[in-house]
Structures are given as C-alpha cells and as structure tokens.
C-alpha cells in the first residue's frame, strides 16, 4: 500500500495560506500585539506593591479573607524571587489568550447549542483539537506569525478554546425545556431568550468553561516559550537547558502560584452565581 501524503497536503495548505492570507495574519498580529502590550504596559506602570494591595482587596471581595491573604503572600513571593516582570508578561499572555478564546468560544458554543448541525460538525473538531499534542500547533503558528508572543498566543488560544465551546453549549442545552418554552410563550425574540434566560441560567457552566480555559492557557506557558513567547516559561526553559535547578524551580513555582490564584478566584465567582433550578 502506498503511503497517503497527508502531511504533504497539510503542508500545502499551510504554504498556500502563508502566501494568500498574509494580510489576515498581519491584521491578527497587530491586534494581538496591541492587546498583549496594552495589558503589560498597564500592569508594569503600577508599582508591584499597589497591585498586590488591589488584588488582595479584590480577592477578599469576590472570594474570602483566607484566599486573599494566601494570594498576597504568593504575590510577594513572586516579587521576592524577582520574577515580577516575567509574571506580568505571562499574565498578559494568559489574559489576552483567554479573552480571545472567550470572544470566539462563547459564540461558537451558543451556535452549537442552537443548531444540531453545528453541534455535529463541531464536536469531532473539538475532540481533534484537544487530543492533538499542543506542540503540533506551534508549527503553523510559527509559519504564520514567525517567532515571539503572537504565535505563542495563537497556539494557546487554539489549545484553550475547546472547553469554552463545549461547556457553553452544554450549559445552554441544559436549560430546562419548560423555561425555554415559557420564554417563547411570552413572545421573546431569539435574542431576548438568549440573553435574558438561556445565558444567565447557563452561566455557572459557562464560568466553569472560563476557568478551564484559563488553566489550559497556563499549561501552555512553557510550551509557548519555546517559540519565544517570553514570560515565566522562558525562565523554566532556561533552567532546563542549563540544568539550573534553582532557576527552573522558581519559574515553576511562580506559575503554580498564578495558577492557584486564578483558579480559586474564577471558581468562587462561579460558586456565587450558582442558582438552584
């Protein structure tokens, strides 16, 4: 049996896109750069201590005192390890990729809930996206966008988006049929039904998707650093390549601290929104 040239086909498509969609990639690059550097600039302009105090208050407000104290300690530790700038870079990358993943993922999720056809089309695609090793996304990312933050973010978004789509769709499909019927029976337009009934009732599930999206973005930090995305991932990679245990561990610890904070904060946001149906 002859070998099917699947790899070649993909290569062909990627090359074609490189040539013909250059304008699109340039446009995306511009947006992403603006977004990431915007977030970075804002966070770096404020002294670390002020940020720590603000985050402390915020976490206390949305979650509880214990978590707020833990968060503050964690942030001080990062500052103390002199990883503040790297962490901000990583945070900017995560926030930007989460934002993009949500902006695309939530509407797609809603689409899969509303159309059985979209659902059938999307589910295998999502399975594919989630099982494909994350490294593979780096190749087209580099080809389209070169090295740096932009391809890192591109790969991260693709990797982190599936749970958002899935859980948004699931949340909306789980809204009790009788409530949807009631919304229809009073003469809601499709849009009114969506924003007033379906999305609010699906919110706990959608928030779980947001949480997973952030966690997956974090898990891409080191991988994205391989193509020059910078941030804490670079520290870890440097530690790895020089077998510098101390450096590698500190970078890893900073990532863990960020992960725990982001996870707990988004989870307590979800808890608060839960409504018994």
């Amino acid at each position, binding site marked *: 049996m002859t070998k099917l040239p699947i790899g070649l086909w993909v290569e062909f498509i990627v090359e074609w896109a490189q040539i013909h969609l250059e304008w699109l990639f340039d446009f995306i690059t511009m947006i992403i750069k603006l977004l990431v550097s915007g977030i970075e600039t804002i966070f770096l302009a404020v002294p670390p201590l002020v940020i720590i105090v603000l985050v402390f208050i915020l976490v206390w407000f949305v979650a509880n005192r214990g978590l707020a104290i833990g968060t503050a300690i964690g942030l001080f530790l990062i500052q103390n390890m002199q990883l503040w700038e790297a962490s901000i870079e990583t945070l900017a990358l995560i926030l930007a990729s989460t934002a993009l993943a949500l902006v695309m993922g939530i509407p797609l999720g809603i689409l899969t809930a509303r159309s059985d056809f979209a659902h059938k089309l999307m589910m295998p695609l999502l399975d594919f996206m989630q099982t494909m090793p994350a490294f593979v996304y780096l190749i087209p990312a580099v080809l389209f966008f070169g090295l740096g933050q932009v391809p890192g973010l591109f790969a991260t978004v693709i990797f982190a988006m599936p749970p958002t789509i899935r859980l948004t769709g699931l949340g909306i499909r789980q809204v*009790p049929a*009788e*409530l949807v*019927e*009631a*919304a*229809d*029976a*009073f*003469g*809601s*337009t499709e849009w*009114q039904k969506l924003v*007033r*009934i379906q999305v*609010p*009732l699906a919110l706990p599930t959608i928030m779980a998707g947001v949480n997973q999206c952030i966690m997956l973005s974090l898990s891409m930090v080191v991988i994205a650093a391989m193509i020059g995305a910078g941030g804490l991932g670079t520290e870890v990679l440097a530690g790895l390549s020089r077998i510098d245990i101390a450096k590698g561990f500190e970078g890893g610890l900073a990532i863990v601290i960020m992960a725990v904070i982001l996870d707990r904060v988004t989870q307590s946001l979800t808890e608060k929104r839960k*409504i*018994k*149906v």
Partner: protein
Amino acid sequence: MSKIIVKNLVKIFGDHPEKAIKLLKKGYSKNKILEESNQTVGIYDINFSVNEGEVFVLMGLSGCGKSTLLRCINRLIEPTSGTITIDGEDITTAAPQAVREMRRKKISMVFQGFALFPHRTVLDNVAYGLEIQGITIEERRKKAAQVLETVGLKGWENSMPQQLSGGMQQRVGLARALANNPDILLMDEAFSALDPLIRKSMQDELLSLHNTLNKTIIFVTHDLDEALKIGDHIALMNNGTIVQIGTAEDILTNPADDYVEKFVEDVDRTKVLTAEGVMKSPDPVVFLRDGPRVALRLMREHGISSIFVVTRERKLAGILLAEDALQAVKEHKEDIKGIIISDVPKVGVDTPVIDIIPVIADTKFPVAVTREDDKLAGILVKGSVLAGMVRRGNNID
C-alpha cells in the same frame, strides 16, 4: 361569539407526516402507524370552537394529545395541517413576527411545572412579558405588582421563586400570564402538581378571577372533577382525537362512547351521592295561605324568579312564578291557590345524583326535593348539583 375556532387540525411528529396521514385515512391506529411509518400522531382531525369568555376544558388520559393541541393554539408547536382562527384570523399561516405579537398581547400560558425563571425575583418573573415588549422598568414593575396583588402575593415581590410553596409559585405563574392582559389564557395541567387542598383553592380562585376578568380560558386536565368544576364546555380526547364535546351535564348524562363512559364512571359519587347531599336549603318558601304580594316581595328580596309553595305542614304544594304573582297583584287577587303550578319536578331525598341530572336537564324550574311524607326538604338548581358533586369529591380525596 366564537373566540377560537379550530378546524381539521392535525399534528404529526416526524419527518414524513404525509405517510401517517395516508395510513390514518385507511383507519390505522396510532400504534400501528408508529410501527409502519415511524411517525407519531399527536392530534388528528380536531374540530371545536371556544366562546368568548368561557372556560373550555381539554380532558383525557396521558398521551392523548392535550398538550399538543394546546401548544398548537399559540404555535409553540407547528400544526401539520388545519386552521386555527382567533378573532377571525387564521393564525396557522401568520408570520413569525405576527405570532410573536400575538403571544405578547393576546395569548398567555400557564405551565404544569410553573416554569418560573429561577434567576429572577417574583416581581421580575411577572414583569417578563412586559419587559420583552420594551416597557420601561418603572411601568412594568408597577403593573406586575398590581397583578401580584390580585393573586394574593403582595409582599412577596422581592423573593426568589424557589422560596415559595408550590401553590404560591403557581400564583406567580398565573400572575405572569395575566400581566400582559391577554384575552386568552392557555393552562396546561396548571394545578396538577399541587396537593389536593391547595389545588381546590386554586380552582376557586381561578373561577373568581375568571368572573372578574372575563378571559377566555383553555384548560388542560386529566382530572374529571376539575373539568366538571371549572369547565363551561369540556372536550374529551382519546388517542389524538376529540370523542365528545359538551357541558358537564351532557358528558355525565350522555357519554358518547365506552371511553367517555369509563371516564365518567370514575365519578362514582353520581351513584352514591343522593339529592340530600347536593340540595340547597329550600328557603325562602311561601305558604298556601300567603297572598301574592308576600310571595312577590320574597322573590324580589332573594332575586329569584320562582318560589316553592308549601302547606302549613310544609308539604309541597307547587311552585309560583314571579310573572303570575305580579299578574295576581295587578288583578287585586288575595289568594295564590289558583295560580300555582302544582305539577313541579320533584325527587326524593334518596335519589342518586345520576338520576337527578336528567330531571334537571329537562326542566326550566328548580327541582324540589321531598321526604317520604312529601315535606319539602330542599331544592336543586343546575349549578348547585355539579358544584355539590365536585365539592364532595374533593372532600373524599
């Protein structure tokens, strides 16, 4: 006047309704059609009309198509064929925009499981229908609060629906449906999820609301007591078709077929319940020695158009009509003996209700209930017999 006219309405669930219709015309049963063509017959060849301001009940066993029929009327379900005319307009061909407008202004629905929005306060649940019409927040909340008051839920505006008992939740459901001030209320087993006592009080409340608001109501139930109590007309459904339409009395006295008869049989109390159990007190009565003036004054005081006449021993002598009494007064007659009708319908106190119903149906007078010695024990009027039966029924469960 007919508010709603349904003609030849059919709903087949499935991708090839024409197959099912072909088989239906050949007289195949619903199960057979499902087997042969994989199409489910929801309802088939439904015809009826609902008068303005009446309570029309759809009744039948589970799966007979009541909900399907009800949902065709506001097009939550698209009928396969047939027409539904509301206020002279066929709504089966209405465009989506017009359907939405109709649901907003003309037809509201109350659901079995209440279907309240759990993320909204009671007030904002009731205001929902107004909200989506773009009515300002002050105005819609004011209106919603008024409606909540009419269903007896003043003070609960800011609670969440889950904090309310079942009966109260359904009041919210009713208030939400009334807030748009629709002409027509569709109620799908609205009280079936409530326990019997609450259910009875909700029925009473619905009837009194109905008296003041004068809505046209289509009410789905599988409970005969409920149907008898609240329905002006009752349509009995079986396997997707209507087998009989009539008043409560029609259905009790002339069941159209075995199916209806079986349904009605469950109202065992028509056999066990006797005249004594459903009669009203005989007051007022006039005595034979009284003059037409006395009789006329009593009738006027009690707002009745006829009065029973008894002897000194309270034995039944006959009935006196207001018009005859008036005539006698004009002619300066002192005596009523000559003008009473002595051939009045009467039944004994032990007569079962099932035998009373035809007597009542046949006469335009109230029916007298007498004891063995012919003494007047009570009277029966149409409404009170049915009400009495239902009242008893509820006490039993």
